């Protein structure tokens, strides 16, 4: 008897080493509360981003549909689905920093980098991102360069970015 084309039971699932590493890495989170988000943090920390090609693996480990995984990834501002550039600059756009001139600072940074907020420089090295409050509100405007917090930020602080 020939097998139906819809019977996948005997077909071998090809899992690459990278996929396997990812599956192994996130497996411990499957039994934890909120495990999917914990796992997505792990993936992003490990690979720099969450490759949509891996949604299948993540969904498999968590016993969810791919749509559910995509839905969670897309809901949160932190998760990215493309490789990060070498440098990430985040500038707080919220009220306390507005009161301390962050609109002007943002324009100056955009001009200096020749890019717009929430996009990358043409050489793809630097990404400029909006963030809403870093908890440094008394010492604004606040900036973060590659994870490093900067109070009373000025355009001069861009010198910390070593291309």
């Amino acid at each position, binding site marked *: 008897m020939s097998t139906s084309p819809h019977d996948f039971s005997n077909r071998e699932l090809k899992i690459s080493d990278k996929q396997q590493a990812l599956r192994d890495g996130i497996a411990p989170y499957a039994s934890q*509360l909120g495990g999917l988000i914990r796992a997505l943090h792990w993936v992003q920390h490990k690979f720099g981003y969450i490759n949509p090609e891996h949604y299948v693996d993540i969904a498999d480990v968590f016993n969810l549909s791919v749509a559910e995984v995509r839905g969670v990834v897309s809901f949160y501002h932190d998760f990215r689905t493309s490789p990060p550039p070498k440098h990430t600059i985040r500038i707080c756009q919220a009220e306390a920093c507005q009161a301390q001139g962050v609109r002007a600072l943002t324009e100056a940074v955009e001009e200096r980098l020749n890019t717009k907020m929430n996009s990358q420089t043409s050489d793809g090295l630097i990404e400029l991102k909006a963030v809403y409050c870093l908890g440094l509100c*008394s010492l604004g405007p606040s900036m973060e360069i590659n994870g490093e917090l900067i109070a009373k930020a000025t355009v001069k602080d861009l010198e910390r970015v070593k291309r």
Partner: protein
Amino acid sequence: MKATISSDSFAVASGVDSVVVELNRHDLSVIKTGSYGLAWLEPVLELEIDSVETTYRNVTPQAIESILKSRANKKHDLQIPNIETHSYYSTQQRLVFDDSGIKPPVTVPDCSLLDSVLNLSPTEIIDAIETSGLRGRGGAGFPAHIKWRTVATTESDQKYIVCNADEGDSGTFSDRMLMEADPFKLIVGMIITGYATGATEGYIYLRSEYPVALNFLQQAIDIAYRENLLGKNIRDSNIDFDLDIFVGAGAYICGEETSLLESLEGKRGEIRSKPPLPAIAGLLGKPTLVHNVISLASVPGIFQIGAAEYGALGVGRSTGTMPFQISGNVRQGGLIELPFGPTVRTLVENYGQGTLSGRPLRTVQIGGPLGAYLTEDELDTPLTYEHLMEIGAGIGHGGLVVFDDTVDMREQAEYAFEFCEIESCGKCTPCRIGSVRGKETVSQMRNKPGGDRIRLIEDLCDVMEKASLCQMGGMTPIPVRSAMQKFPEDFRGVKP
């Protein structure tokens, strides 16, 4: 010689790490503490020689050499009176932040208070919370004891305490400061809350923008487990309490408690419709007490001074102390813990010392991005839930953001809609679509007379207020309306 330096986010963002390297280079071992909350002085360095303490402000690596040399003749440009004697600090009444800046954040805590509270019965504890009049510090100001009693009396095999450390409001940082300066205060508050309500598991939902807090909190939890403050049979009692941190992923809406619970379960942070209340069916459908960091960290202080004494602090039904935070265009921004009741002006002028730019103050936004913009006249309003309600404002999480006269209130109204657009969970139409329409309409008023558009926005605000599923859409009209109604000159098409 003993060197103590603040190393919370204010100090880190002001370059404290390189100062510590420099101190180490001079063979000084450094004790790291949290911040006293006098943000504009950070990093603050305290040197103790032969039990004489000298304090320095805004310390840089370059200044260390001269500071250490100046010790002999005791004069240095950066030297200031010790913080305990600084009027900004000495006039405060601290119950939540009493140890902040003083005790290193991650040393083994004194457990005598916890032990004595765990000797009370759960009912006695909840009665004390009722006597204290404690209300939630996260924004809504709901009486704490009602939620506690609901969780305590709802039958279930499992109950949870969830600490809301999502602190998304611009102009607020008290949760962060507490977690970085005195994480044990929060942990002890959560243990007491767990014992009183019968919850044996706790989670701290921490926003991802707070990596320094995460580090201190994690260290404190590790110590707490080692010292038998957490886990099974804590402090040799028959009480169990486990505590874990969950890091969010960047979403303002996850500060709303039902969105937070969805997120904590690993899902999209979409709002749940209420009822059921989380106190009845919350995390994984079980009774869950969701409290802000400061609410939980206020609990030890209530038992420290006594519930009746705590309840006598403040004004009317706004009892106890509140850590106010002043920021924006202000000379002396920071954290000020006082009993409810000082006026906005007291905080902004006496503590804040006016605008940093030196220009006239135009407005203060109170209570975060969903809070009202106040006029100069309204600065005389006492900071209590009731007084602010009378002028259509709220304390929220205690943030006061100061603006000088260069602010364009039309721009602020546009931003309020824009923020709602960016952070809306998308579940209901008034908020998801209303925010976009609102932003477009206010944007069209740039350099053009408001005219009919003002009416349009008023209508839109009505719809959002009445028909939104949660306060994200429901309260965005507050900053918009306060800007339009109190500063109409900015909506006439000519820049002031």
